[in-house]
């Protein structure tokens, strides 16, 4: 009896405790360890223990053109992908936001890219972009355009990868915005219609502003994931040709598990962590302010 009342008095600590301990051990401790390693020049293949070198690994990595390019590329990939997904996703949601035969089927189909295994999606698009047998060039030819090199050329590899990301994740924006639109009250739209507003005016001045908080949250959720894009790039190019599609995530992976330069890899991971953490703080601030 005494024991059970102890449990009950401390329920708000005891119930979440196992999850807290787990996350602390598998997330917090590893992140701290990574931060520590970033101050060493540890190379796993050398067999030596990590030695503290202060900021030397930072100086080395942060001055490397390969790193700076990967950093810029990560932002560029994310920015273009998310902006395109935002426009297409919202447009598709506005189109689908009415009752029509087959709406539930259309919504089911929109779900499929979101649950498709990214590594397999990358592989399918590998064949799609193949310069000699791929369908992408067939489509270009059908429109009388010259064939492209797609992921085989340094110039077109990032746009091609963005295309894949857009295909896979635009439906997420669409579904979130559709859910947001479904929750809006009809009254403002009706009122605007009675006042003689055109459909375009209603869309621009009433519907979109009302659903804007949902659109923004969807975009930021997407942004955080896009910064971490790994699977499709790894499957399709492995960061190549050369380093032309190497993002921070891919570069960190190579430094860790191909070159085993753990000290330098830790620097890359810390930067990626800070970038993603900064954006996550942004999202939470936004959510907090939209709740007031």
């Amino acid at each position, binding site marked *: 009896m005494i024991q*059970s009342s102890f449990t009950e008095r401390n*329920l*708000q600590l005891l*119930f*979440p405790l196992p*999850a*807290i301990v787990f996350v602390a051990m*598998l*997330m917090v401790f*590893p992140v701290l*360890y*990574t931060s520590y390693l970033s101050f060493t020049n540890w190379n796993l293949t050398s067999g030596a223990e990590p030695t503290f070198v202060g900021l030397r690994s930072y100086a080395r990595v942060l001055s490397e053109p390969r790193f700076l390019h990967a950093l810029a590329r990560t932002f560029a990939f994310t920015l273009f992908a998310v902006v395109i997904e935002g426009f297409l996703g919202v447009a*598709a949601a506005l*189109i*689908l936001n009415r009752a*029509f035969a*087959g709406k539930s089927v259309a919504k089911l*189909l*929109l*779900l*499929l890219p*979101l*649950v*498709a*295994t990214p*590594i*397999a*999606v990358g*592989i*399918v698009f*590998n*064949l799609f972009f193949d310069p*000699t*047998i791929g*369908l992408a060039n067939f489509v270009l030819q059908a429109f009388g355009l010259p064939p492209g090199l797609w992921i085989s050329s340094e110039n077109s590899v990032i746009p091609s990868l963005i295309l894949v990301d857009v*295909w896979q994740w635009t439906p*997420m924006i669409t*579904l*979130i915005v559709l*859910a947001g639109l479904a*929750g809006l009250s009809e009254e403002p739209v009706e009122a605007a219609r009675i006042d003689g507003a055109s459909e375009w005016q209603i869309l621009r001045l009433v519907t979109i502003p009302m659903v804007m908080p*949902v659109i923004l*949250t*969807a975009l930021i959720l997407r942004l955080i994931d896009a*910064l971490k894009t*790994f*699977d499709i790039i*790894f499957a399709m190019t492995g960061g190549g040709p050369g380093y032309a599609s190497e993002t921070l*995530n891919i570069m*960190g992976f190579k430094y*860790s*598990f191909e070159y085993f330069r*753990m000290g330098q890899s*830790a620097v890359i*991971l810390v930067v*990626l962590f800070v970038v993603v*953490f900064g954006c*996550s703080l942004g999202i*939470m601030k936004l959510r907090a302010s939209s*709740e007031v």
Partner: protein
Amino acid sequence: MNRKIVSSALFYLAVAAIVLVVLFPFLWMLASSFKTQVDIISWPPKIFFSPTLQNYRKVFGEQDFLKYFLNSTIVGASAVGLSLVLGLPAAYSIARFRQRKLAVFILLARLMPGISFLMPWYIVFSRLDLMDSYTALILSHILIALPIVVWIMSTYFSTIPPEMEESAMVDGATRQYAFWAIILPLSGPGIITATTLSFIFSWNNFMFSQVLSMEKTKTLPIAVYNFLSYAEVDWGGVMAAAVAIMAPAIVLTMIFQKYVVKGLTMGAVKG
């Protein structure tokens, strides 16, 4: 009247375009998986061809795909099960005692780049001789499933009125008993959402398994990826493998469509 017909025709045209773009890669993957190598590399691409099962025979015969399939299932099911054990009480506590900071803390596991945990795991698991073990793989996949469970279930629990367990507590039941006997039985839909979604995320995970598993515990995404790298020209086999890995997630999604939509859009739409 005429305008109405034109606008509704335009509307269905737009819907058809959206659906076609979404579906096209799936249809093309499916078609290619039934093509012979000759049909795949023929130019222009063939729309009509005589289908063959040889790619699937190769994938499930010569390749040990059933084993990888089983590995993915073991890892996914264990990770989701353990995440429910860890996550349900935590989610309940977050919902009832409004522990926002705790929610954010667990959610960080979903937001942070997985590779910043993976590198240290690799070092620690190597030293503990846990590479290529189910233990390491399941632990890593719990970190995928747990935030999803906590996120979905804390939202779900907060939609259940507190009077439900309070009336039982007035009658002398403890809160933990009320949680077990009253709240959990009411939480079926939420648990289905959390289970389906976190299983799919575990099923699709590539990075953790690529580093932590080797031949014994290799999961499907790794097997499919490896198939690509040493069978560069065998596109039919690769496409059959891609179909095989996507099929379970897609079937789950079709069965639990309503729950999956809810789980995926919950983050952005309140209420």
